[in-house]
């Protein structure tokens, strides 16, 4: 294998591993702020318990995100020297603003958020929680501005093969940025929601009858139920935007070879790039035209218009179906859960099992979505400006092979450690003895929502 394919594998591995953690922490940061705010306003100890349980998960997840992120800032130079040499004048300041405005903010206030509650006034602790959430979101803002510019570049001028920035607001607010930002932030919201609902359901299934996991399930399931239709809407808009600016990517997503009208939506197929056709098609007549052009007979350009300039079809085609399928499953599960919550019935075991099963569903959908958009940009690294093959390193392939193998082993090990540790944190929470929340509740006729403050803060001894 040559340095190009190895470098691509390595960067793909790194960025896939990295995104798992920020996609949780961005939204989990806001959840923590919500929990802390509820605690401050109601004074009920259960909110602080929920906060303390999830702040542990946040700390672990954040650490994994940081270390895998540091790796990437080096790989731009080690593996993709052509990237910065060609478009560095645009990409550099965007990365710089991310480090300056986001990384220091979140890393510094994280210290106060995790360890400072006894040392700072409560309002400062709540504010630090908010600042960490703002920091993670700002980080997403800058990095997605850069990623979107790589997809739909504008506001620059290429002189002798090197890009020069001409209009920064055009660069930042490039055509695909608003759609990608909202799509990604909603994805983070869904990932965190299903993680919270899933782990809390797991605790309940393991016999945890405390109030905290019940409230967490309720908060997360309701949030997911609201976010998922928004996400489907945002995804649709993003798709239309891609059709306008990167039609070859949409053609690969839908497996469309010939330009025609009234294109069917393929629920399943096996794209065959050698013969430039599909096998085993399962079509819905006129479906793709309807979704993409909002007309039954709308015309969609096929891959054959972009010979040699379009991405590999099969990975984009299947990733897209995995993402959409996962989204639909999320919709079903979240709404089914919400029905039980709205009826104020306890969730049956099968419902809890489904929530637990879906704990990491956000990861699958997020990864699949990123594969669609990133593989879909190939053969370009920056659409129309720089090809991936032209940016790659001169390092001997053996060295890249060695580093790739080491990263692969390490990341597999860390992923297993992360998931088993989450399980362990849950099991510990189940086993901690405490004054039963039900006892408190029986003294307090009010329901969970809008619970009146309880005076007995001293018993706040368990999660």
């Amino acid at each position: 294998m040559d340095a190009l394919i190895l470098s691509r594998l390595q960067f793909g591995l790194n960025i896939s591993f990295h995104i798992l953690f920020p996609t949780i922490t961005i939204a989990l940061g806001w959840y923590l702020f919500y929990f802390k705010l509820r605690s401050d306003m109601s004074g009920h100890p259960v909110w602080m318990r929920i906060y303390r349980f999830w702040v542990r998960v946040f700390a672990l997840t954040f650490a994994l995100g940081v270390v895998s992120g540091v790796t990437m800032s080096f790989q731009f130079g080690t593996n993709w020297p052509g990237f910065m040499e060609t478009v560095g004048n645009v990409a550099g300041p965007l990365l710089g603003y991310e480090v300056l405005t986001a990384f220091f903010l979140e890393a510094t206030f994280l210290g106060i958020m995790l360890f400072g509650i006894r040392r700072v006034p409560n309002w400062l602790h709540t504010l630090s929680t908010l600042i960490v959430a703002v920091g993670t979101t700002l980080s997403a803002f800058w990095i997605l501005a850069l990623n979107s510019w790589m997809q739909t570049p504008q506001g620059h001028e290429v002189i002798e093969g090197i890009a020069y920035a001409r209009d920064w607001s055009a660069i930042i607010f490039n055509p695909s940025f608003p759609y990608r930002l909202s799509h990604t932030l909603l994805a983070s919201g869904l990932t965190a929601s299903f993680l919270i609902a899933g782990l809390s359901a797991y605790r309940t299934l393991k016999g945890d009858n405390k109030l905290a996991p019940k409230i967490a399930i309720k908060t997360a399931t309701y949030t997911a139920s609201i976010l998922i239709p928004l996400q489907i809407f945002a995804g649709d808009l993003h798709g239309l935007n891609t059709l306008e600016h990167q039609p070859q990517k949409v053609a690969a997503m839908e497996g469309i070879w010939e330009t025609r009208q009234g294109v069917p939506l393929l629920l399943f197929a096996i794209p065959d790039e050698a013969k430039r056709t599909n096998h085993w098609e399962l079509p819905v007549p006129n479906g793709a035209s309807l979704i993409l052009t909002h007309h039954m007979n709308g015309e969609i350009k096929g891959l054959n218009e972009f010979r040699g300039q379009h991405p590999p079809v099969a990975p984009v085609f299947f990733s897209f179906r995995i993402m959409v399928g996962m989204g639909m499953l999320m919709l079903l599960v979240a709404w089914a859960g919400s029905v039980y919550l709205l009826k104020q019935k306890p969730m049956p075991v099968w419902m809890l099992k489904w929530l637990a099963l879906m704990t990491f569903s956000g990861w699958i959908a997020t990864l699949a979505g990123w594969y669609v958009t990133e593989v879909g940009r190939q053969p370009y690294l920056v659409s129309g400006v720089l090809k991936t093959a032209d940016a790659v390193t001169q390092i001997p392939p053996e060295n890249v092979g060695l580093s790739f193998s080491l990263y692969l082993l390490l990341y597999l090990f860390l992923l297993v450690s992360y998931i088993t540790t989450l399980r362990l944190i849950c099991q510990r929470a189940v086993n901690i003895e405490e004054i039963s929340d039900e006892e408190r509740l029986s003294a307090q006729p009010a329901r969970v929502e809008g619970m009146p403050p309880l005076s007995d803060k001293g018993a706040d001894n368990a999660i």
Partner: protein
Amino acid sequence: MPFDYLSTATLANIYIGLLGLAVLLYAILDGYDLGVGVLFPPRNEGFRDTMIASIGPYWDANETWLVLAVGLLLIAFPSAHSQILQALYLPATFMLLGLILRGVAFDFRAKVIATHKRKWDLTFKYGSLLTTLSQGYMLGIYVTGLRTDLWAQCFALLAAFGVTAAYMFIGACWLILKTEGELQRKAFQWAKRGLWVLSIGIVAVSVANLTLHSEVRELWLGTSMGFVLAAIPVACFAFLGLCGLVLARLPQAKGKGEWLPFMIALLVFFLNFLALGLSYYPYVIPGQVTILEALSDSDSLRFLLVGTAIVVPCILAYTVLVYRIFSGKAEQLTYY
């Protein structure tokens, strides 16, 4: 565009200054927490818990200075960035693996079952060691101008041990400041031993450094500037000597002046960094590429400078805030 009045040469100086500041702050800040990691005693869990508690609220932000430093190199001097990191591909990879291992071990150790805690503690120790050795090696190869011959490799190995000794020394000084009782007594021992190793290391690296580039030799040994520059090593060893005295007296001082060793370590770091910077300015790759040759487009740098001028003072301010909030002896860490 704001800062239009800044010439290209001025921008190059501003950015190499910022890069220098980021590297120096990284070496000091992540230096002490890496040093604490390398000093991790495998046989004393109580010490390890307190040592972790002493760096808990800070390490994440400390490491961010590395991201800023690499980022500034990438942004301001992109061709140097790719040349340096391609030449240092394997040591950079090992440094990153070390940083990953120690970073996650920090969190895992507190959350896993008791029997696994020690394994993560050892991961923290040896991950830190792998990081410091790799950083020293990278610094060594960088200083030679990215040479690959045997002498350059030997110099880099020397630098690897020198940097590790420096981090262990500042880590020990940090522990004197942040801990008490038995662990503090241990930290005094570590600092005394570290002081000797560090002093020998500084002499060795400085002398070896003179053999690398004729320009550097002329700068330091030549007549005109030599006398002025000689103040730097003189001051450095005066401080190291003072530190030796302080370390001998402090245990009887009943808690007074415990910040002194750390402050001196900080000054020693600064002086060594200054000497290094003066030796190689205006090169961004010693003897090979100057800052002006590697500089990226001025307009992009002006655009980033606007944010830098606003944000960097804020970063420094809230960093100071956090150090004030967590001042005093380290407490047992409890996630809240």
